[in-house]
């Protein structure tokens, strides 16, 4: 089996439904198609080139950002605005079809995740997989997330940054 599409932590395999493996091109199509996308950015990429690239992706498509863990501080020090929520809090809001969304214009229809603690992110994605049919999830981490609807594959750091660069261009 291709190691790139086995979940990064292999035992998070939950069942028969697996994420679709996506390239930056497919990810771009998903973002373009979305009406109200959201980027959830976690603390694993605090102060890193991946964080910079992720914020550029958000800027390119005017995607509002939620920061989890303590990512808010790192982002605001880099001059990037985000809204701080706990990961479980934002997932809880996203699963509610009636939540007004970050901008107050309605629930999001696509959520991108990056930099969130892998196994915890996997749990949050599982919540959305089961209880938020109104939302598509896309992970742009360097780890394959089987609980997402679509995910980048497992990659090394260099390849991943290239993926992010492509998406940010």
């Amino acid at each position: 089996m291709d190691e790139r599409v086995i979940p990064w932590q292999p035992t998070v395999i939950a069942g028969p439904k697996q994420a679709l493996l996506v390239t930056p091109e497919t990810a771009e199509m998903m973002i373009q198609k979305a009406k109200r996308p959201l980027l959830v950015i976690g603390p694993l990429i605090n102060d890193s080139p991946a964080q910079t690239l992720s914020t550029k992706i958000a800027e390119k498509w005017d995607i509002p950002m939620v920061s989890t863990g303590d990512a808010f501080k790192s982002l605001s020090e880099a001059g990037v605005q985000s809204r701080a929520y706990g990961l479980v809090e934002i997932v809880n809001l996203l699963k509610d079809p009636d939540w007004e969304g970050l901008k107050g214009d309605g629930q999001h229809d696509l959520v991108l995740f990056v930099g969130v603690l892998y196994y915890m992110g996997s749990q949050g994605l599982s919540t959305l997989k089961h209880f938020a049919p109104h939302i598509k999830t896309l992970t742009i981490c360097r780890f394959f997330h089987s609980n997402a609807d679509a995910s980048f594959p497992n990659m090394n750091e260099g390849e991943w940054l290239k993926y992010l660069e492509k998406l940010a261009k």
Partner: protein
Amino acid sequence: MKLLERYEPFYAPFCDMCCLCTYGKCDLTEGKKGACGIDIEAQQARTVLLACCIGSAAHSGHARHLLEYLIDKHGKELPIDLGMNIDIEAPIMRVVLGKHPKNLGDLKDGLNYLEEQMVHLLSACHTGQEGKSVDFESKALHAGLMDNLGKEIGDLAQIVALNMPKGEDAPLVELGMGSVKKEKPIVLCIGHNVAPGAGIIDYMEDQELEDDVEVCGICCAALDITRYNSRAKVVGPMSKQLKFIRSGVADVVVVDEQCVRTDILEEARKNKACVIATTDKICLGLPDMTHADPDIIVRKLVNDEVEGVLIQDPDKVGEVATRVALKISKERKSIKKLPNLEEIQEMSKECTQCGWCIRVCPNSLNMKEAVEGAMESNFTKFQELYENDVCYTCGRCEQECEVDLPLISMLTKVGEHYVKNEKYNVRAGRGPVQDVEIRRVGAPLVLGDIPGVIAFVGCSNYPEGADDVAKMAEEFLERNYIVVTSGCGAMSIGEYRDEEGKTLYERYSGDFDAKGLVNVGSCVSNAHIPGACIKIANIFAKKPLEGNFQEIADYILNRVGACGVAWGAFSQKAAAIATGINRWGIPVVVGPHGTKYRRLFLGRADKTEKWRVNDLRAGKVMEGEPAPEHLLYAAENREEATVAIVKLCIRPTDTTKGRQIKLNNYIDLHKKYFGTIPHDVYKFVRTEKDIPITYKKEVLKILEDVEWEPKAILQEPSLMDFKEEIVSGGK
């Protein structure tokens, strides 16, 4: 209005299927139901109930073992007497059962009740029983309450029968792998049941062998043995288990119950240590020699005629373990137990750099990098993994390694060689909080002058090492919180030194007061934490105890600024502990691994209708605050958790002065870890008097931006007796 309506269960399925019956596996994705009709939500709740039943049964089975043994030894008439300063000896039993136990025999009534309840709870998990998540959750909360009760009974029994500290100040005891005198014969106890350890201590004292044999322990058994005799050593939390066994220091390994590695026999035998199993919960496939002559058992063990033995008689365990350790120690000292550094370097060269050690690690730790360094005789990365239990030695990397590198042994050796001075201390568990202490702190706690009680409990499945727990405790101690701890959390706190080399136990008193660091003891001693909250409701607010669960829990939820933290929760016991604490209305924060329990209880601060309360004094339903905002919350890292914990100590009845103190802490810590004033601070400002003076200008600006309006300060908020309440089913 009830708890589950305000704090709705949040499910994060760990598995998309159900595999509990032969219809299955059933795929529960995309709204599909299983062959029995169950859906994914109910299946998660069912699994949570199962976990809580398992955890609760573990504590209660432990309590039953202890109680029967202690009644046999001391008689059922032995009084439950906790001394002059404690009149409320069994707050949980009194509230839940309406019974005031006077002696050991009376405690049996509590166990009989909970065992009956547990059978019913467990039966609800069978196929074709409950089908709605809310009903499973209601039962999980009850299983948690039974867990509280079982723990209280277990700890009370051992406190009175074994003369453990009764709420008074307890001595500091030695902690750490380096505290064990390796030149002596060593008996290691692992688990939670003090009886075998006490048997060993008794035998040594009878034979005047105290100076000849070293007794140490891992996990709660260690803490409880030091409550019995402070000469015993605490090796540390369960994260030490595999590396301490691999180090081969222990001559005899005595296991009792809960959280013991199930391959302990195999691991111990690698270094020719003798294993003695002591309860019917962990038999390890060993011959039952409970009724055999000690001379015969000793001979069989010393001559390697058996791999180990099962002895379900703590006194006999004491004799056999001590005698065997004395006999085999000398010969064992000469056995080579770990590879040396040169061998580690050579072994490392076998690494294929496949990287699967990282992928199977629960925390994705970079073991590969450590091995790569070792190839060049650079052991720094191994050291970094070793220190602070960053690697808690679960051993999954070893299982995965395609060239079978003994990674944990390599790590252990590097640690043994480079990490010196692993000697710390922990205050021995003091047991319950005294009534006099409650009288002293009841008012400042309920009014908010003491900003909260924060309890660090549970296991060592930490995301980034044990330091995080100690750092959180330190932060709160510096800010005048009462910090309570137990079990592995208490040990992790003790393994941290400040810049002057002092542990937190050396810096802070063991008083249940502002800036107090109170180690109540082991897992079963956790019962004293809700116990203290119950006593606040009774002693300070004069709420009757007997059979008055609803009113007491309602009082605690709305008035007592307490928060539990189970940063490394991993076990089913921890699930039961957290759920039991929740049932008393006390919020709990777990670490990121806690999401794998599948269920949290989250509030929705954006939905004002969720926070309405019945102000019993005003006689009407009023708008409330999201305080506490969540009942069971998982944080991604220490920084997030620290801020969440102080926020969860806010209560609707804080006085304006108390609220200022709590908001000051919330804002301070948010600024420290997030760089700004929290965006939701306005939700916790009722009048301008609530605003901390230091932050007045900034907070007023936020209030203006959100068009804030003052709110009434609630006098007697309650979730009980809502006029419009609809009573339904299992809610």
